[in-house]
């Protein structure tokens, strides 16, 4: 376990990190890839279970993501820990990220990487079809 500073500085960077998975893609439709995924849960505390996931955002893109059963299955496994998944497009790249992570929990998550990779695959397919 990492050493936690007992007297943290009252200013400067906080102990929270964001891991952004970036897809470098330039298209006129980048703004259509705006989306956010939230879990559908049942129960509370220890009995909390993920029943499904709900995507909100650009209509066509969200339909593609929601229709991917493999992606939904992967999301169900991590959503209890990650909380939400955001796809944040910009002019020449698209960022995919979850929630802020405290530094003592910061580590590479291969499941999250696979999910981001699959979302990136869908984005590339949509852009190629339009071209």
């Amino acid at each position: 376990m990492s050493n936690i500073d007992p007297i943290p500085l009252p200013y400067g960077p906080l102990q929270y990190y964001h891991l952004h998975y970036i897809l470098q893609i330039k298209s006129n439709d980048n703004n259509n890839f705006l989306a956010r995924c939230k879990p559908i849960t049942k129960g509370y505390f220890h009995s909390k279970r993920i029943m499904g996931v709900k995507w909100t955002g650009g209509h066509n893109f969200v339909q593609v993501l929601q229709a991917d059963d493999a992606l939904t299955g992967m999301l169900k496994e991590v959503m209890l820990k990650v909380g939400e998944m955001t796809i944040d497009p910009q002019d020449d790249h698209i960022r995919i990220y979850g929630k802020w992570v405290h530094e003592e929990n910061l580590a590479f998550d291969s499941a999250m990487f696979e999910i981001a990779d699959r979302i990136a695959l869908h984005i590339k397919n949509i852009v190629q079809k339009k071209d």
Partner: protein
Amino acid sequence: MGFVEHKNHHFAQAKSNKEEQKSEEHGYGEIDPVIVKKLSTHEKLAEEMKQSQIGCEALPFGSHPIERKQYYSQTFSMSPKFVTNKGLVKIRGKNIDFVQLLQRN
């Protein structure tokens, strides 16, 4: 002469500068020198990715134009305004091109 390399695996103790410290014991020939290599946070992340069989490379700070652009589109509410770039990792052979680590201010 053999070298023992110790790598710090805790993100909490991450330092931005790469340092290499070499300590040598004098007087006793049996004790080998110890090299302590401190890695920055994104370099440790790249090491973990390599252990997961993902081809990647930790880029030097500020070497890519993405690091000098906005990190959030500010379309979503609660998007942070002040963040610190902690490094960029280039991914090879996947749909994802980069992984960037940001710290909240």
